[in-house]
């Protein structure tokens, strides 16, 4: 088990390292931050001074080694726009993002899993078809289209809810629904097919043959097995708690991490973008790592496998 954990940790670390490196290189090759921040009309000397102040005149290698070194000391750099520490800028946006993504996650789980199970248990019924139709629509419609559609109906036409901003909890309703529906749709489809796969297994027939009532066959015998593939997708949803709302935050002018990243990318505010990417990849990697551990808990076949088998 220790070896398994060590292996996974090493892999997680390598993933983070690759993301950091890739982001660093691409950001510096895709535009000159000094020119963008100072403006196109800035005098040549001012731009050169800016470059020197931020170390942009050094070679890429020097900049990279300096950056990686400072990460290990906990220094994630400063914003080139207002000089504040990038980590603080990002950190103050996290609560706003979580205020959308956590309720949205509950919506996804609370809607998607029951809908998927119900559809599987009533396969080919009218309700199954309706659930799947809604699910396909829910995950094919891009979130910015769905978001704008909801704004059009509930903010513009009906006037029930605000179309953007963060003044009250009512402002969160439309973005949460926009985020939640897409994820619920994905989860419903995933849960349904996992459930159908499991319900066709011989051990389900065995459970019925030994007199287990059908409800208990579903909850006690089918669901724990169907949970195994479903945990992957739920883990992914946990991993996107920080990064999953970029588009929706932009549509609803929600001042979260996603919007910070969009603005920072446009400005080539290097330290901020890198800091967001580091945070996003860290949550993703942490979620994946947790999923790996969960697999071992819910699937005994993997547990002994991870321990070296017999």
């Amino acid at each position, binding site marked *: 088990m220790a070896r398994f954990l060590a292996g996974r940790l090493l892999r997680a670390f390598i993933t983070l390292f690759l993301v950091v490196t890739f982001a660093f290189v691409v950001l510096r090759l895709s535009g000159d931050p000094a020119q963008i921040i100072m403006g196109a009309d800035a005098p040549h000397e001012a731009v050169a001074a800016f470059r020197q102040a931020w170390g942009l005149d050094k070679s890429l290698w020097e900049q990279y080694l300096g950056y990686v070194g400072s990460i290990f000391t906990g220094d994630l750099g400063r914003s080139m726009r207002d000089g504040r520490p990038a980590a603080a800028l990002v950190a103050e946006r996290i609560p706003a993002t979580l205020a959308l993504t956590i309720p949205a996650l509950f919506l996804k789980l609370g809607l998607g899993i029951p809908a998927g199970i119900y559809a599987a248990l009533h396969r080919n019924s009218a309700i199954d078809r309706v659930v799947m139709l809604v699910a396909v629509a829910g995950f094919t419609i891009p979130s910015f289209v769905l978001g704008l559609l909801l704004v059009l109906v509930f903010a513009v036409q009906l006037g029930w809810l605000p179309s953007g901003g963060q003044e009250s909890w009512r402002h969160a309703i439309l973005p949460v629904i926009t985020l939640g529906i897409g994820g619920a749709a994905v989860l419903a489809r995933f849960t349904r097919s996992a459930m159908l796969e499991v319900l066709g297994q011989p051990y389900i027939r065995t459970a019925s043959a030994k007199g287990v009532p059908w409800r208990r066959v579903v909850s*006690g015998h089918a669901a724990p*097995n169907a949970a195994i593939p479903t945990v992957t997708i739920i883990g992914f949803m946990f991993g996107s708690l920080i990064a999953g709302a970029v588009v929706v935050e932009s549509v609803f002018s929600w001042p979260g991490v996603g919007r910070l990243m969009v603005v920072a990318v446009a400005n080539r505010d290097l330290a901020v973008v890198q800091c967001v990417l580091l945070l996003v990849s860290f949550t993703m990697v942490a979620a994946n790592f947790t999923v790996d551990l969960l697999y071992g808990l*819910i699937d005994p*076949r993997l547990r002994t496998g991870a321990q070296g088998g017999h």
Partner: protein
Amino acid sequence: MNLVEISGLTVRFGAAPALRGIDIAVAPGEALGMVGESGCGKSVTWLAALGLLPGKARIEGSVTLQGQEILGAPAATLDRLRGGRVAMIFQDPSSSLNPVHRIGKQVTEALGLHRGLTSAAARAEAKRLFELVGIPDAQRRLDAYPHELSGGQNQRVMIAMALAGQPELLIADEPTTALDVTIQAQILDLLNELRREMGMALVLISHDLGVIAETCERVAVMYAGRIVEEAPVERLFAAPSHPYTRGLMAALPPIDGPRRPLAAIPGTVPEPSALPPGCAFAPRCALAREACSVAIPPDRLLGAGHRAACLVADDALVPA
């Protein structure tokens, strides 16, 4: 009174018939063999009787357990008798056990449902059952998962689970097909022994006449969704009368006497959706007459407990 009586049982999946009128009875304590090729309906017969077929199956006819109709009975009634009075074990033991539950728990679940045993009492009884079916180191094995045991051991677990409800009838659906030959014999011996000790009836479903001969007192031969011949086991082997049964026997290697090439039955089993009118075996039958293709041949009594659904059975009965 017969323990189970099945009469006029038909099953269709959509347009295709899987069973076309099954009549068979099982007496208390008796061992009945059901033999036939894959897809002939021998498993479907018993899955249908216990209400274990998927919802899209259309089932008609009658199945009684000691006179009480169980076909279409309420779910609660079926749940009580399944695993209680009638237990069933299946072909592939390793995938028939739930991979995420410990095997002890899977047995104690049945003990709780049918005998009201819980916690320590259920665990003690599960251990006793494990020992009864010959699982070594039973106490420790209770906490194992199915993937940690061999196929033969898993089949023993399945049998222990089936015995948990103290059934009057055990239906064993190809219980040895997925197992090594040496393990097959052990499992058959175990089933025989348990049946004698507990006085329960056994229905053994198999495509292997040899397995049936070793274990059963009576045999029903199935072909394309019907029983084509039924007889006490000695009589069936001494005087097989349906040409299909004779074909099955000819395909078995003789244990003594000169070696001879094994005779294959020509042709293939017809698709359920494209059954010929009349006898389903007629297109493959060397003895078929014109009348065979007109109507399904009725059962003919050929001796005590011996019937065959064949127009030429009498003639065929004459020893060659």
